[in-house]
């Protein structure tokens, strides 16, 4: 098979899989969205307050913490996966939770990976808000919560970028969730695409396993579905971001 044919074949395959509403594909897509969506939500709920705290609360070692957070943007997924793995395995300190190879374990791993990313980008968005805006909030009698709300409003383009970058990273991520989630699909999926249902298999981990099977067309099809989902999110976000 010529090389271009893989791509063409992948595109055709993607359409096929989508229009036929293939239940196996739907289920791994569902797991992808559920895991990455939840991880992004939790990460944003941690990262945005953290970025505000690091921007506005003065304390010793603040710059050191910021440097650490920024360094977190470079956490290798496989490393994070391993870390969560050794925590969650039955022999590990959190083994009693019995959460290894579950969607929850994947959410934890992605949460660790993307929280620093969202924090780092949000930090730089907050930094770009002019000081006089913040002083105006204070002189009008606003408290910290009003500073936060107004800064969010002024920096919203950057904050949305941060969250979208986190979501993109989570959706595309494979190294960590492969280790902690185990890429598990139930029944009938032995034969490949078309049967069975995902438990911890996502679009990315499925791409990895299809690739190692040498089934490049299916991998490309899955990749196209993944990109289409993220494109959809970005188009939606585009409407929010543009109106100013």
């Amino acid at each position, binding site marked *: *098979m010529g*090389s271009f044919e893989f791509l063409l074949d992948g595109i055709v395959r993607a359409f096929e899989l989508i229009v036929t509403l293939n239940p196996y594909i739907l289920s791994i897509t569902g797991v992808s969205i559920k895991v990455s969506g939840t991880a992004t939500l939790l990460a944003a709920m941690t990262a945005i307050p953290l970025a505000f705290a690091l921007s506005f609360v003065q304390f010793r070692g603040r710059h050191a913490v910021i440097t650490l957070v920024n360094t977190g943007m470079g956490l290798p997924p496989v490393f994070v996966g391993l870390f969560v793995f050794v925590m969650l*395995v*039955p022999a590990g300190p959190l083994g009693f939770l019995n959460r*290894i*190879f579950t969607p929850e374990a994947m959410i934890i791993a992605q949460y660790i990976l993307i929280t620093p990313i969202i924090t780092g980008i949000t930090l730089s968005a907050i930094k770009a808000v002019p000081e006089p805006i913040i002083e105006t909030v204070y002189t009008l009698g606003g408290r910290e919560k009003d500073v936060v709300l107004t800064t969010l409003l002024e920096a919203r383009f950057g904050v949305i970028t941060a969250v979208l970058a986190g979501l993109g990273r989570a959706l595309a991520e494979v190294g960590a969730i*492969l280790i902690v989630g*185990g*890429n*598990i*699909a*139930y*029944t*009938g*999926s*032995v*034969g*490949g695409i078309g049967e*069975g249902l995902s*438990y911890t*298999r996502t679009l990315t*981990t*499925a791409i*990895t*396993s*299809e*690739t*190692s*099977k*040498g*089934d*490049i067309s299916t991998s490309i099809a899955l990749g196209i579905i993944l990109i289409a989902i993220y494109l959809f999110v970005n188009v939606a976000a585009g409407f929010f971001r543009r109106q100013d």
Partner: protein
Amino acid sequence: LDSTPDNATEELRISTTSSTCDTGILDLLNKEFENANNAKILTVCQGTGKAIATGEMGAADVVFVHAPASELTAVEKGSFINRTYVMYNYFVIIGPGNDPAGIRATENAPEALGMIAGKEQPFISRGDDSGTHNKEKAIWMAANITPSGTWYQSVGKGMGDTIMTADIREAYTLSDRGTYLAMKDKTKLVILFETDKEYLFNPYHVMAVNPEKFPDVKYDMSMKYINFLTSTEVQAIIRDYGKDKFDEPLFTPALI
């Protein structure tokens, strides 16, 4: 840092499977080959399916894998020539020491898997179309069972990862002997079934990428490599490999 050793003359790209890499045997053999032929070997370790696909697209010179059916299809398509039998070993069924499905007592592999299915004990399938996975599918077929239910989980991963998963899940799985032995001290799982020579046979073949399809491949060097693997000396190395470390060899040479 200079990553290219000085007197390297020619590079040979081998596309192979994780079991030859992870057991360390390929490393040993390649070193011998390099010393003897003043060559540089680049080894790409991946799933069997991908390893064959890599060769089919001309990105390797020689392919060393263990999936006879896929190999033959590729040879028929004209992607490879000179497919040569190098060595074999046997697959083993591993699982928790207390053997809840009771497969120790069974006669053959289909029967063993049948017990697991009957008791719905957790079974982890590689699900990656590898030689091991294809072998597993063949055994299910022979047992006339289509495995289904949440006890049967496919992970789409390499052998090592699959063993780790089965270990944590306290599940059964099918493994090649070499990888299992290499990981033996990292898992609680034990060999529960290995007596079936018919269904658990695991042959490794080497084949050269067809130079008529990809004129740039190092066909001469590939042939040297194939001849090297089948030479008496190398076959002897294969025969002895693992004895010191695991008290038993990992592979059996095909020719001696």
